[in-house]
């Protein structure tokens, strides 16, 4: 299927890679379908692009790329809503806020986007436990050595390559 986007123009996406959001992204609940766009180039910021509004796209990143203690406890309710059967099927993404000042890049660890990689159902889960920050400064935390193009990255199985 073709989708029109503000940033990437018209892109071709395999309809089997569309992520159906249950409950949606808070504040953007009307947008139910998203695709995860990955750059072929070696950098880990990805785009969570709304299918039905080309102008809405979030920068997301795999939180485990950063060396911060992060053990999000997904509520039973969310596990049930997303029909998650195994931890192995979970794709976890955190939304990144990029500001004009490049040193003020932050990630929202409090409300990750949780996707069942098998069924491609997702939701933004607000974590009840752990007191994780809404604005974790990414400048201040070390990055894992794992190369960004690691084929084992779970999100690769549900993403679409942007190329170039």
């Amino acid at each position: 299927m073709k989708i029109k986007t503000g940033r990437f123009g018209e892109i071709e996406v395999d309809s089997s890679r569309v992520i159906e959001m249950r409950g949606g992204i808070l504040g953007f609940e009307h947008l139910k379908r998203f695709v995860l766009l990955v750059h072929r180039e070696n950098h880990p910021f990805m785009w969570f692009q709304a299918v039905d509004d080309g102008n809405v796209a979030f920068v997301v990143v795999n939180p485990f790329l950063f060396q911060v203690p992060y053990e999000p406890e997904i509520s039973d309710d969310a596990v049930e809503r997303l029909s998650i059967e195994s931890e192995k099927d979970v794709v976890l993404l955190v939304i990144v806020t990029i500001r004009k000042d490049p040193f003020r890049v932050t990630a929202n660890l409090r409300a990750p986007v949780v996707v069942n990689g098998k069924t491609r159902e997702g939701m933004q889960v607000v974590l009840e436990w752990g007191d994780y920050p809404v604005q974790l400064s990414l400048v201040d935390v070390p990055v894992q050595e794992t190369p960004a193009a690691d084929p084992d990255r779970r999100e690769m199985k549900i993403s679409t390559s942007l190329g170039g």
Partner: protein
Amino acid sequence: MLVLTRKSGDGIRIGDGILVTVLEVRGKQVKIGITAPQDLAVHRDEVYRMIRDQNEMASGAGGLDVGGVKDAWLKLIEEKGSKKDED
């Protein structure tokens, strides 16, 4: 706004799918139980607002285009590198 007075253990029904129950009243705090259909998200108001505001801020990606976001990542790594060198 509809205002109802309830005691501990009492409930309020909203439509046919939502039940709000006052579980406990202790001092200034009220413990509330909510039974709602699965497709309805339930959040603490202040947490909902905080996450929503952050999402709104994030959705613009700082007005940066695709290349700008890539540069933001590279600058981030560069900044980390220079921090490492200082250590």
